[in-house]
């Protein structure tokens, strides 16, 4: 026989169960809402991501094709130019001048001996779990370039972007933009010039490499017999400035 007390007990248990279930439901819905907020709405993002990925691939393909067409055109132009140049000495001199200024302006692929410098972010600190990256200290990269220039580097590239007079290095979110092209760590700086001088300038005691290593960056510097530095792919438009002839006093 069930007593009145027993019935009460069962009733209380049901109430407890219901309360727990409601509580669980609320927690679950809160969880899902926060996930929706951080991850994005339901199925949509995956679709959007795929869409974006294909878009990116398309754009990259287009870039490839364009680069190839430009290369072909340049080949043809060179043939024509060379054909003309062989005709007389004045034109030949002028042509070598043209090449020199093209190299200087950064509109020519270059090749030569030099050094390669790789900067990797420090390994993740297990104790503190804190990450810092060269992305937050881009002036260190600026200093590397200044050191290379002081050692008479003839051409410099950062992550295959030619360093020209207009090259900016900018932090954009968690990546870097160089010449308006986004890139990321590791940073690979290449320089053509006298390899011994360049390497010594970087590795100077207390110099830039010492400094980077003191900040725990993983730095490698090595000489190479032949380095290729690509041409600049950016056209800077002069909107504000006008050339003028200087009157020598």
């Amino acid at each position, binding site marked *: 026989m069930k007593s009145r007390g027993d019935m009460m007990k069962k009733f209380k248990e049901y109430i407890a169960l219901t309360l727990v279930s409601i509580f669980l439901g609320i927690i679950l819905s809160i969880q899902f809402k926060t996930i929706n907020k951080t991850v994005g709405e339901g199925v949509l993002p995956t679709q959007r991501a795929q869409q*974006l990925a294909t878009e990116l691939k398309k754009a990259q393909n287009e*870039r490839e094709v364009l680069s190839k067409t430009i290369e072909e055109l340049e080949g043809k132009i060179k043939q024509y130019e060379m054909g003309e140049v062989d005709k007389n000495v004045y034109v030949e001199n002028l042509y070598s001048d043209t090449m020199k200024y093209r190299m200087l302006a950064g509109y020519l692929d270059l*090749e030569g001996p030099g050094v390669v410098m790789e900067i990797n972010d420090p390994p993740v600190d297990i104790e503190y779990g804190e990450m810092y990256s060269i992305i937050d200290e881009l002036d260190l990269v600026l200093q590397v370039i*200044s050191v290379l220039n002081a050692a008479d580097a003839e051409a410099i590239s950062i992550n295959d972007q030619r360093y020209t007079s207009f090259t900016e290095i900018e932090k954009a979110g968690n990546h870097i933009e160089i010449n308006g092209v986004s890139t990321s760590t590791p940073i690979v700086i290449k320089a053509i010039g006298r390899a011994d001088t360049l390497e010594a300038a970087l590795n100077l005691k207390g110099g830039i490499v010492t400094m980077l290593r003191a900040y725990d960056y993983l730095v490698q510097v090595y000489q190479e017999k032949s380095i290729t530095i690509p041409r600049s792919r950016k056209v800077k438009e002069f909107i504000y400035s006008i050339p*003028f002839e200087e009157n020598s006093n």
Partner: protein
Amino acid sequence: MGDIMRRHNPKIILTIFSIIVGIFIANQIKLKLETFTPVTIKSLQATKAEITSVNNEISELNKILKAKEEELALLENIAMGDDNILDILKNDISYNKLYSGQTSLKGPGIVIKMYDNPEERSYGFDLNDDLIHDVDILNILNDLKIAGAEAISVNGERVLSTSEIKCAGPTIRINGRSTATPFVIKAIGDPKLLYASVNAPGTYGDILKIYSIGFETTVEDMLYIPGYKGVFNYRFAKPLGEDD
């Protein structure tokens, strides 16, 4: 005794089950979050940014392509005897001189005057905080370039791709020449943008002021920036594919 156990059992079982379910759900959510990370809003934005940057490159390439096509057309004309190769080469030279900083330029822009802390008393304990270093100038120049500066000079020396800015004892070396404080940086470009790039709160120029380093910016309608006067000689670098 047995009665008590039986009466307590459901509660204990319920508690244990609730805990298990809780852990289970937490694990599940964690797992799901991890598999979902590739499609977070952040990663979507990153891909989007990459797409715009690639598209920018494409438009740049298109410009180059157009220029090259024109050049080729001209050359074809020469081959047929209509035009002169000299004109083309001279054009090419003056164009590249302009882009490599050999040509003097004039236009609107800003002038920045930077000098060491003029006060007798030091700003901090370290005297180095009172002085201008090569990094300071490098950062300012980079900020100006980001703001689209078309030509920059430091104490009359044009800043080129090959310019070094390096502390050398009490002076700073630029283009192989020593200069000292005060540093006058001139930049041609959109005056508003240039001014903001070194004066807006949080910019490097703004931070320098906190260190009580002299930093004065003036906007000018007409600036004259000289071309580089030195001579270049390439001894190591050669155009790619010209090994004769």
